[in-house]
């Protein structure tokens, strides 16, 4: 059972918006994590772009390491480690990787940066992935009755 946390969610969201703003104002870049990771994998672009992406990802990883020590609750309640649970995690990962590259963005690129620009594509994508995510949880929890 998760509790409603409007204040910390609003504060954390504002930091995410601030981070995206630093990338936009200093680098002229959209802060889409799927895009930054995907372009890093493809090795596209100039050396400067590669350095910028690597620096961002190193910063993100440093935050993950630090939070683990100072605020482990950020990661609490991991899923089941049964074989079925692990297969589900892997399948979900493949769908997220393929889908975000085919659809040109994820929660940050479309949901935060795109909506802030009032991009029609990003609004359509965000409504679609929210609806698909909601439908998936509905089927898993209320049709199949799997408690996750």
């Amino acid at each position: 059972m998760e509790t409603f946390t409007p204040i910390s969610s609003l504060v954390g969201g504002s930091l995410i918006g601030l981070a995206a703003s630093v990338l936009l104002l200093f680098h002229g870049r959209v802060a889409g994590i799927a895009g930054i990771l995907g372009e890093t994998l493809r090795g596209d672009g100039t050396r400067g772009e590669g350095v910028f992406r690597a620096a961002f990802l190193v910063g993100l990883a440093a935050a993950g390491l630090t939070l683990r020590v100072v605020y482990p609750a950020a990661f609490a309640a991991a899923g089941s480690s049964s074989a079925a649970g692990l297969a589900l995690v892997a399948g979900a990962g493949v769908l997220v990787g393929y889908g975000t590259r085919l659809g040109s963005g994820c929660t940050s690129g479309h949901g935060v940066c795109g909506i802030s620009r009032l991009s029609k594509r990003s609004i359509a994508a965000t409504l679609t992935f929210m609806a698909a995510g909601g439908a998936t949880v509905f089927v898993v929890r209320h049709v199949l009755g799997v408690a996750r």
Partner: protein
Amino acid sequence: MMKTDSRSVLIAILSAAAAGVLFGVGLGISGMSRPTKVLAFLDVTGAWDPSLAFVMMGAIGVHCLAVVVAKRRERTPLGGIFHWPKPAAVDKPLLVGAALFGVGWGLGGLCPGPALLGAASGSAASILFVVAMVAGMLVRHASARREAARSS
């Protein structure tokens, strides 16, 4: 032309790294890095937790101000251009991709940013998720190359 003197390069690297740290801390504080919280947000007909709507409000509220500022400028302080995504139609790859992403998000409770953050924190499930996500990305890159080769 992007400035390439050592001071500008240093500012570019440090600001990108700082953005990564801020982004990660924001994800952690907001609850986005907890799969159970994401799933509770998506579970509208169950024990719904609307917190993540507040994450979106905070992020969009701050970022749309930056968009307004950026739109009025020709160049970044470092001399680079703004790489605005080109306006394009809502097409099938966009919607199919977003739908597949949504299904994966609803199954795992992780999207790319929180997955990377969790993997860096040492969470085994997040590391597995990231490996699978990278595989999914590489599959899409390969199919995009084949499509490009066919149409050229």
